[in-house]
Structures are given as C-alpha cells and as structure tokens.
C-alpha cells in the first residue's frame, strides 16, 4: 500500500446564497478504500459529491488527487481539459438514475465502448470484445449488446452504467445512490456485484447513499452528514454499531428491522 492518500479533501465548503450546501468537509481516501457518506435528504451529501467530482465548484477548499503522471495535484486548480481527461480515465461517476449516465439512444456496446473510444481506441473488434467482456462481468447476456438501454430493465440499466464506467479501469469511482430506485432483490444482486468488482479491481470509491445497508456491505469507512456538516466519521461497523452522535443514533435506530 502506498503512503500517499489517493484523494485528500480539505475544507470543502459550498453555499447556495445564504444556505449551506456543505461546510468544511475534510477526509483522506486511501487506495483500495471505500468511503460511505450517509445522511438524510438535504444533508449536503450530493452537494459534497458534486464538488469532489468537479460537477460543482466549491466556494472554498481543496481536492487533491494522486495522479498517475504528476503525483498529488489539486483537482480544482487544474485546467478544464485536464479535469475532463481525468473524468474519462482515472475517475468514474455512477449516477443514481441510469438515464443520466447512459446514452439512451446508443446500443449497450456503444455505451460501454464510449470511454475506450474517448481515450483513443480505434479498433472496432477490440472495442466490441471488451464491451462483451464487461457485459458478462455485470451479468448482462452477450446477445443484448446491440440493444438500447431503453429496452433494459432498471437493474440492467444500472449494471450497464457500472460497466460503462469501469471499462477502462478507473482508480476512483464516485457513486450517487447507486441502488436508489431498485427493488430489494435487484439491489442485493447489484451490491454483490459492486462488492466483487471493487475488491477485484482494487477500486477506491466514494459512495453517497441514505441506505445504511449499502454502506454496511460496501464501505470501509463512514461519514455521517447532517445540515451540511459532518457529525461523525469512523470505521463503518464502529459507527453503525456504536453511534456516538445523537443524529447517528437516530439514523441507525430508524432502520426497520424485519
């Protein structure tokens, strides 16, 4: 394991006028580590993720990423071409709604191949082989490769989105409620798949969710947010089994037991 964190977040603050989006958030993410961010709606977790992934520009703070070529660099100070290049190579973003992350008018194979072609792959046969390989890894039958995402079920669309994002081996994946809107059995399979891929590829990930079961299964560490502030962070089972902050206690106890 290397001795520099993959991602260092320092004092990220984003306000919407007078309202706080997220305030002075800081953490380190190490290679191969999965960080969960939980909190209720409006707690600032999506704002935080947007700031980290470069979709929003924070008002203050630094996001330092350990790039392959030049070592740790402040992502927010990068030029736009560099940041977008990072977004196509070392980073990936899985949206809550697959329709935001997929091209609905383009076949499954084209969706998976887009990132490859974006970084210069120009051999149809190889692109298709890799697309087939990835469809197989996310449990989509190979004969669906020329179907459009519209013809897929919600769970398949989400798995396709994951394949599309992981196809060129990113090192850091941002996930915004990856299991939102799926029924429980499909959720379970998706989580199983994600856990396998994360372990197998040694991915680091930042997962935003309101579902404690998701972080219990996937995340090594957990950050609990409320009103834009981080109220508690620590190892996942430590936070979930022995919550210290009043809000975390409320959150943990409000999960339905069946």
């Amino acid at each position, binding site marked *: 394991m290397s001795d520099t964190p993959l991602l260092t977040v320092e004092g990220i603050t984003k306000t919407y006028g007078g309202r706080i989006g997220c305030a002075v958030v800081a953490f380190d993410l190490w290679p191969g580590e999965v960080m969960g961010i939980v909190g209720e709606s409006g707690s600032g977790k999506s704002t935080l993720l947007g700031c980290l992934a470069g979709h929003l520009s924070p008002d203050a703070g630094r996001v330092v990423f350990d790039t392959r070529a030049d070592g740790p660099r402040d992502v927010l100070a990068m030029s736009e071409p560099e940041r*977008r290049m990072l977004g196509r190579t070392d980073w990936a973003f899985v949206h809550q709604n697959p329709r935001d992350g997929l091209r609905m008018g*383009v*076949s499954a194979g084209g969706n998976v191949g887009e990132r490859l*072609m974006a970084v210069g792959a120009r051999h149809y046969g190889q692109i*298709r082989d890799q697309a087939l390989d990835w469809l197989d890894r996310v449990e989509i039958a190979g004969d669906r*490769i020329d179907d459009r995402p519209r013809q897929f079920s919600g769970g398949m669309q989400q798995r396709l989105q994951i394949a599309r994002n992981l196809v060129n081996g990113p090192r850091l994946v941002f996930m915004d409620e990856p299991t939102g809107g799926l029924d429980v059995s499909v959720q379970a399979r998706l989580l199983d798949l994600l856990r396998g891929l994360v372990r197998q590829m040694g991915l680091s990930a930042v997962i935003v969710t309101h579902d404690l079961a998701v972080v219990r299964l996937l995340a090594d560490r957990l950050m609990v947010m409320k009103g834009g502030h981080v109220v508690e962070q620590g190892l996942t089972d430590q936070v979930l089994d022995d919550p210290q902050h009043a809000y975390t206690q409320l959150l943990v106890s409000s999960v339905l037991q069946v």
Partner: protein
Amino acid sequence: MSDYNFAYLDEQTKRMIRRALLKAVAVPGYQVPFASREMPMPYGWGTGGVQVTAACLTPEDTLKVIDQGADDTTNAVSIRKFFQRTAGVAVTERTSEASVIQTRHRIPETPLTEGQILVYQVPIPEPLRFLEPRETETRRMHALEEYGLMHVKLYEDIAKNGAIATSYAYPVKVEGRYVMDPSPIPKFDNPKLSGTPALQLFGAGREQRIYAIPPHTQVISLDFEDYPFEATKAPHPCDLCGDDGSYLDEVITDDAGGRMFVCSDTDHCESRRAAGHRGRMSPKENAA
C-alpha cells in the same frame, strides 16, 4: 443591371461575412458564427451558401451553380438566375471555366484548380449534433478536442449494419484538429476534400455558421482500423457516357423494374458525350 446592390447584400453585410470567412480560413474546420441575413428564399434552399457566394463574388467572376451535381435542377437554376440578376456576373455550366462554384451536396468530377472557390450549402454544420443536442457541450467538445463520441456513431453503424453505413455527410478531421461535417456530399466525394488547390467554403444560413477548408489542407475521413473508410458508389458505368469512375444517380425509368444509372455531374457527363463516349442506353447515332 438592377436596383439591387451588387450581389444583393449590402456592403456592410458582405464585410461582416468576409470577416467570418477570413477567420474560418485561418482556423480550418472551425465553425465561425456569423450574423446570417434573411434571404429571398426559404431556409434549406441554400441561404448560407448564397450569402457566402455573394460575399465572394466580384464583377469579373464566372459563376457555376450545381444542385446534387446537376446544373439544371430548380435550386441550381434559381440561384444562378438570382446572381445573374443581382450581380450581373457571367455564368457557366463548365466546371473548368468557373471561378466561383456554389454547390449543393456534390463536388464536381472535374478536378478543381487554383483560384477557384467552391461554396457549399450546409443544412446542419455540427457533426456531433445528433449525438449531443446541447450546443454549449458540442462547442466545449470541439474546444477540448473530445471527439470520442464521433466514433460511437460509427461504432453504432457497424454494430447495426455490419459496415459503416453512413454514406453522406461523413465526418472528417481537418488538418489533424477539428472534426467537421462536410455537408451532405456522398462519401464518394470525401477524398476530393483533401489537398484540393481550390478554396472550399461552407455556409449554413439557418444555423448561422461559416467554416472553410483552405487549399492544400489535409482532410481525413474518420474510421476504425479494422473497418477503414471506403468511398463507395453504385457499381455500374454511366448509362449515357460510359464512365465507370464517376458518382451515379439511379433513375427509375418505368414501373417494371427498369432503371438507369447516370452521372450525377451533368457537366462531366455532357463533356464526355461531346467527346464521343457512349453508354449502354445512349440514343443510337443517326445513320443519315
């Protein structure tokens, strides 16, 4: 002459268009916005091309107008008449005699020479438009040279049809930088875009964009390593002039499956026939 200003447009407008043209020539393949004017014809009939032609014309010019290769179809005839009336310039149907050629969807078969200007009418100048509907995003993609998406389109073609089925408006890369829509010319004409001694100007009136390929510019058609670009045409010789190297139109001649293939470039076909070439369906020579 008439009461119109030379070539219909007022001098300030022509000046504005020439500025856009200069910028377009300086940055090959880059789409330069310009303040397109209302022209006395509907959008889609070549308002962009007409404005570019008007800005380029001088009283000494000889103008040729072609529509799908033909000199005698409605669009070509009406635009030619328009400039005859408003500019009083000489007109011709001979490619080699023209100094300015306005074209819709074809490049003449006769190789162009230095000093000639070829003006294209362009319906949709943005090659990425059907993949990415947001103009802000496509401009950013051009600026940052993010052209992976163009290959997604070609990938889809192969996945669906087994080959790159795009047969017109085939995307090209100009001088290793901008990806450009060559207007809806057949891909048969794509190789002629590259290295031409003539100046090629593109005008899109409704979309308000002008772009250009300066003389002797490298233009490469996009493709995959294992599915290379192919300039295709109907595998027949012309039925009137017998040429098997020119781009052909298929003409249905009856309701019993009868058809003939003729050169789409009428000037090319006529000059070959004048030189004595004959095709399968040429009228029999009069023995008398």
